């Protein structure tokens, strides 16, 4: 259960090796936090001692984003074992190549980033509704707000995930379950290692700070940094020629 200042006791991270996912967990490590569950593709490769969670316990479970049929049982089992899940973070995802020549890899990317987000998001929603409380944190991206030629496949999966998450939030209104959609700009992380930084770049810690602030105040959408909300308010409507120029 969250306490009165919305500090959670139990947090499940889907995509538990993600830099942003772990940064969020570290920022949620107050005296209230008791249990963190990292759902990862290769559980035997996670060193729980390396996860910064204060005095809380860390558990690791196997999770495959593409195995959509397994998601509902996985989340139900985790809740059975560890009790109510106060926060579920959807932190998995891949960048992919956005190659005009590779339809198969692009479809796989869509399966991980979108289909996996839908099935695990609905599985999370089912558990949170049953509990009557809890928040699903969805790590979307500004890449989905307006897709760019240079990473349009990734952008399109994020657009789908974002639309799914905000719509799910509306569908859950009144059930006690909430959705927090997070729209970071360029995040310096393992996923973007080697890429040229975009303007308004942030670190995983900045994203985590924004998530924690959003959880505390019960927001439904946060942008990181916050000013991207206004930047994209304009960019969304920039002429195509201008948008392409910005993507150089």
């Amino acid at each position: 259960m969250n306490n009165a200042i919305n500090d959670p006791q139990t947090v499940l991270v889907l995509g538990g090796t993600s830099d942003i996912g772990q940064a969020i967990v570290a920022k949620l490590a107050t005296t209230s936090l008791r249990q963190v569950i990292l759902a990862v593709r290769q559980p035997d490769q996670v060193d729980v001692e390396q996860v910064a969670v204060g005095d809380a316990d860390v558990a690791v479970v196997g999770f495959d984003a593409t195995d959509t049929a397994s998601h509902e049982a996985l989340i139900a089992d985790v809740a059975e074992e560890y009790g109510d899940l106060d926060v579920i973070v959807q932190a998995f995802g891949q960048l992919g190549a956005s190659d005009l020549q590779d339809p198969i890899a692009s479809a796989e990317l869509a399966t991980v980033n979108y289909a996996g987000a839908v099935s695990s998001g609905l599985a999370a929603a089912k558990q949170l509704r049953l509990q009557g409380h809890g928040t699903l944190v969805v790590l979307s991206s500004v890449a989905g707000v307006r897709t760019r030629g240079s990473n349009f496949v990734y952008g399109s999966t994020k657009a789908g995930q974002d639309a799914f998450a905000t719509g799910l939030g509306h569908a859950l209104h009144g059930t006690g379950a909430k959705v927090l959609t997070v729209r970071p700009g360029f995040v310096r992380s393992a996923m973007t290692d080697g890429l040229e930084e975009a303007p308004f770049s942030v670190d995983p810690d900045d994203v985590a700070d924004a998530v924690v602030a959003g959880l505390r105040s019960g927001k439904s959408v946060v942008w990181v940094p916050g000013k991207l909300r206004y930047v994209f308010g304009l960019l969304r409507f920039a002429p195509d020629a201008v948008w392409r120029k910005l993507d150089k």
Partner: protein
Amino acid sequence: MRSQLTELSGWGRTSPTVATLVDTSTQELTAGGLAFLTSNRRGVIARGLGRAYGDPAQNAGGNVVRLAPGPILLDDEAGVVTVGAGVSLDELLRHLVPRGWFIPVSPGTRFVTIGGAVASDVHGKNHHVDGSFGSHLDQLTMLLADGRSRAITAASDPDLWWATIGGMGLTGIITDVTIRLLPIESSLCVVDTERVPNLEALLERMESGDHRYRYSVAWIDLVASGSGLGRSVLTRGDHATVDQLAADGHKALRDPLAFGPPELAAIPPGIPNALSRPAVRAFNELWYRKAPKEHRSFESITGFFHPLDMIGEWNRLYGSKGFLQYQFVVPFEAVDTLREIVKRVVASGYASFLAILKRFGPESGGLLSFPTPGWTLTLDLPAGAAGLGALLADLDAMVLEVGGRHYLAKDATTTPEVIRAGYPRLDEWLAIRKRVDPDGLWASDQARRLALV
């Protein structure tokens, strides 16, 4: 029986969750209504008027039961009343006061139910003399997890009795309560008010003089610092006798037991946090300045016991993020810790417009009852304040270090470890609960948060 999915929170309006809210009566429940409730694996908790500050009267995903008021049966000869658990102290006082009786213990608001008063083992300004609510009960009727209704007394089932008084509703649904009453001659109180310049003077005056009064409480300005640290207004008194009114030539002599508590104003919904630091500073200054240096007066029951009841929905003053109330008790000898906590709160700058200091007498015997001999301080804090969690964790540690504890009816941020350290009889309580509720039917958000279930 009427039920609907409802978002519920406590009086502090923090951490709301959604549950099935069931409005029912004792008759319906005992006639098999419990079977309907047990179908939900998330359990059941009773809710009164929702005046606990945090989450004890909510049960996310489960059932929350509200009992219809029920009868008030006064035995005028014996001075006892048997009353439905869903009856509020407000209704009860409107029945009792004109007949010359008062409740043995009154908390700071009339808007709590009798069931809630027992489950929280509430205290009032007379704790140093009379103890808590649970010290004045003859009998409880409860609906237990096995679906049976049972009347118990302290002698017939001491385990269940002392697990239920202060037990936060986690041993069963209290349906009827028999209370021993206090006879009164008038609905007025004779009150001595003193303005006290600092904390040291206050502690000294309370220590040396509280025993002369049935009721005693101090309001502390938690904005003032330096030489004015802990400056306060101390009010102490008792029920006024007819002779006292006569000596004063008081106009209430015509109808000394008249009782008609007013509501002067109500706070509308949706206002932003009105209790900013400058606002609280100004309010506290005014409150302190307007108090007389030393003065005796007659006050109404509402004015003396329940001043905030005159402002409807006053919890809305803190805006949408809500607030929390922090109440702890430390032993009498832990004055240094008390002073240190006052300093920390003042220095934190989280304005508190309602800080109350009071001395507790002996314990009632409730295994999870809060009052234990010592100083108890209560303060309000806005829930949205940055860094509040860290401050409260520090205060928790300071309280526990000297053997103090926290009040479950106010708690909204402590942890299982903090409660375990503060309540040495917790394991006894858990064992009794296990016996009377082996399948864990009774559950609340607070119980889950604090590992009480």
